[in-house]
């Protein structure tokens, strides 16, 4: 049992950490694409500076996403050999395709983009960053196709004691994958937008390089507003989908223990220490039915009844996820999402009136709001992955049966501590560099990129 718990902790740690960097890569890539495309189309040097500055921040973040991503691919085999044997026939394919179609594209053309400013034409150079952005988005699509199989297995038969692929088309067009892709891509754009808004606000407040950060702020306000609206709409679709396909996850996200019709919405639920039972709650009648069915009535199954029906379907066992995580994960995500909607709309208001500048009231809020997308991204995945438990592949394989049988607790503890230490140190270095580069602004970034004199002291 101990290797399972430690392996789960390690997977949680490395995944959450990895996904700290991925959404910004996804989103910021498209910002650099837009800025450099404007530069090439209009020949406006100011936009080249913009592309280079945001590109530099993109690179620091990208490196972290890459190196933490390799860990993810290896871990499926290292810690979850039982899982790898069971699903490899169908789950390995999208992972291999992701590497072949997306990783090569991203990494090769990013190398060309970084080092190719002087050695290729403008048109070719902007094409490289387009391919990087397409590659990142493709990578998200294929890994989500893989993840969607864990949430909603399709296109397989059980044969030779494992899940074997019989329909590649069904795997690729798994509806769950595409709902998640929309949600993830727009979350990435939202993350990028709030990153740009925050850093622009920081500089506008200090009235430094105002002409540089005004267009950055405006672009991010427009992209951010569109993206966050799409995130919320897509999130709502996800909720409706969950009620049909993963009702236990839906119920646990709402801490709805008893089946209700009309169903009430929990404003605040306090559970016991097991994290799986309700002690006390404040509820608004009918609102949950309204959310799910767009009318004041409608039956929403509760956790206790679902536990009964899951036992009937999958055999004896505990099918209740850790409600304390799914419930709060969901609420944190939604709260952060609506806070971002309000802030993006507020920023857009000044863009529409052409009044972007240091005089915007509460500009400092945007600096603080840089944390919001990270809160939403992380808590959203906590809900998605913990809400799937006790299954690793929904309805097919339980997490306990998936762990590598040869692992000793000592081995996993060693690697868990190792990853935790290295990741903490890297996070420190990464945040230090991002903050330093962001605060220095475009002129700082340009000075830094030409080296200090060899003999002289380092600047």
């Amino acid at each position, binding site marked *: 049992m101990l290797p399972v718990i430690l392996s789960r902790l390690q997977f949680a740690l490395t995944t959450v950490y990895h996904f700290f960097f991925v959404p910004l890569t996804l989103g910021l890539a498209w910002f650099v694409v837009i800025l450099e495309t404007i530069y090439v189309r209009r020949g406006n040097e100011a936009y080249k500076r913009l592309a280079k500055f945001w590109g530099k921040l993109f*690179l*620091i973040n990208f*490196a972290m996403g*890459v*190196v933490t*991503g*390799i*860990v993810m*691919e*290896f871990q*499926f*085999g*290292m*810690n979850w*050999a*039982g899982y*790898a*044997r069971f*699903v*490899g*026939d*169908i789950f*390995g*394919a999208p*992972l*291999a*395709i992701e*590497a*072949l179609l997306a*990783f*090569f594209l991203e990494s*090769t*053309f*990013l*190398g*060309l983009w970084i*080092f*190719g400013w002087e050695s290729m034409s403008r048109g070719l150079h902007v094409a490289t960053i387009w391919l990087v952005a397409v590659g990142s988005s493709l990578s998200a699509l294929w890994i989500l196709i893989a993840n969607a199989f864990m949430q909603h297995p399709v296109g397989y038969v059980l044969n030779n004691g494992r899940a*074997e*692929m019989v329909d590649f088309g069904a795997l690729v067009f798994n509806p769950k994958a595409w709902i998640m892709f929309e949600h993830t891509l727009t979350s990435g754009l939202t993350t990028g937008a709030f990153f740009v808004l925050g850093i622009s606000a920081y500089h506008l407040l200090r009235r430094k390089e105002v002409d540089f950060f005004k267009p950055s702020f405006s672009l991010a306000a427009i992209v951010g507003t569109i993206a966050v609206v799409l995130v919320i709409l897509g999130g709502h679709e996800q909720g409706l989908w969950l009620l049909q396909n993963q009702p236990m996850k839906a119920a646990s996200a709402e801490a709805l223990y008893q089946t209700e019709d009309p169903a009430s919405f929990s404003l605040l639920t306090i559970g016991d220490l097991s994290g799986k039972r309700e002690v006390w709650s404040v509820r608004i009648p009918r609102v949950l039915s309204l959310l799910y069915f767009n009318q004041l009535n409608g039956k929403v199954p509760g956790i206790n009844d679902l536990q009964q029906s899951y036992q009937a379907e999958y055999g004896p066992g505990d099918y209740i996820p850790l409600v304390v995580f799914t419930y709060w994960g969901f609420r944190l995500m939604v709260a952060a999402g609506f806070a971002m909607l309000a802030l993006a709309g507020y920023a857009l208001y000044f863009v529409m009136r052409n009044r972007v500048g240091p005089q915007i009231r509460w500009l400092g809020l945007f600096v603080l709001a840089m944390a919001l997308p990270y809160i939403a991204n992380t808590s959203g995945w906590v809900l998605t992955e913990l809400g799937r438990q006790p299954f690793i592949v929904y309805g097919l394989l339980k997490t306990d049966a998936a762990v*590598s*049988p*040869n692992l000793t607790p000592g*081995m996993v503890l*060693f*690697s868990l501590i*190792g990853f935790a230490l*290295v990741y903490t140190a890297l996070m420190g270095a*990464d945040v230090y*560099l991002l903050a*330093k*580069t962001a605060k220095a602004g475009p002129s700082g970034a340009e000075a*830094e*990129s*030409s*080296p*200090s004199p*060899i003999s002289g002291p*380092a*600047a």
Partner: protein
Amino acid sequence: MSLNVLWFMLIAILYVGFFILEGFDFGVGMLLPFLGKDDAERRTIINTIGPHWDGNEVWLITAGGATFAAFPNWYATLFSGFYPALFLLLLALIGRGVSFEFRSKDARPLWRTFWDWTIFASSLLASILLGVAFANLAKGVPVDAQMNYTGTLWTLLNPYGLIGGLSTAAGFTLIGAIFLSLKTSGELMDRAHAAARKLWLPTVVLILALLVTTYFYTDIVAHLGIDPGVVPIASLASLLLTGYFINRKMNGWAFGLMAAHIALTLISCFLIMFPRLMISTTDPAFSLTIYNAASSPYTLKVMSIIALIFVPIVLAYQAWSYWVFRKRILSDPKSLTY
């Protein structure tokens, strides 16, 4: 040819590509603190691989993904069995990757020196671990009837595994030095060339040791015969010719032959394995093969179609990226990209 054989070959090609490309990458990393006398030179050295190292590393990721897709049982046994070694490999790859990016973002000498040595140590560790892993794949490891590895990290650190690790590190350093002599200029180029001259003999000694011990530790005699065939012999010949061309300062030829040597050595390893994927020392009947470890025929077919379409495209644009950056890099601080 069955699809099982095709995928064995494809995965072998992916690892060969990775060993050649990331081989000189790792070599450059190991040479960095020794050949670069000042910051501009060290930057020059890093920039020779700057646009490429990430794309080169994707060869490993793709090889891992292809193993998972085509031979899930191999992937499961290998990755869970070699857990501690792969954990260390991951730490090394993480350290290397961030070093390249972090190093330039702060100009303080101590900061830069720290990341330079991280690049050195992680390149060395990764090279040794890869050599240890493949030597043990050729030698065989304890695997039980349920396809699970039953050894420990120490099982892998046997004399043959260690010789494999050291010879890999030596070969990577040598090709790294030759690569630098092609991509740099002036004093730095001369130093890189001198390093290649010095490294050649120790590499030959280690490769000979690997060759001799291969007859004791693997079943090469039963599998390939006393005369192992053209591939291993050509591998040795290309290493010897590499020395000839280094001495005559024909570094382009030296690079090509060293790349051939690395490729042929790794192909020899795969020839010893074929058609087995994990050779079981517990009982030959427990070995994983390209048949009992494979995905279903349908999956292999789907993956074959995708690979046949996209592998040529990838090869074309990666080759093009090397073409774009084909020029030597000058150690002139004004022209260096940081």
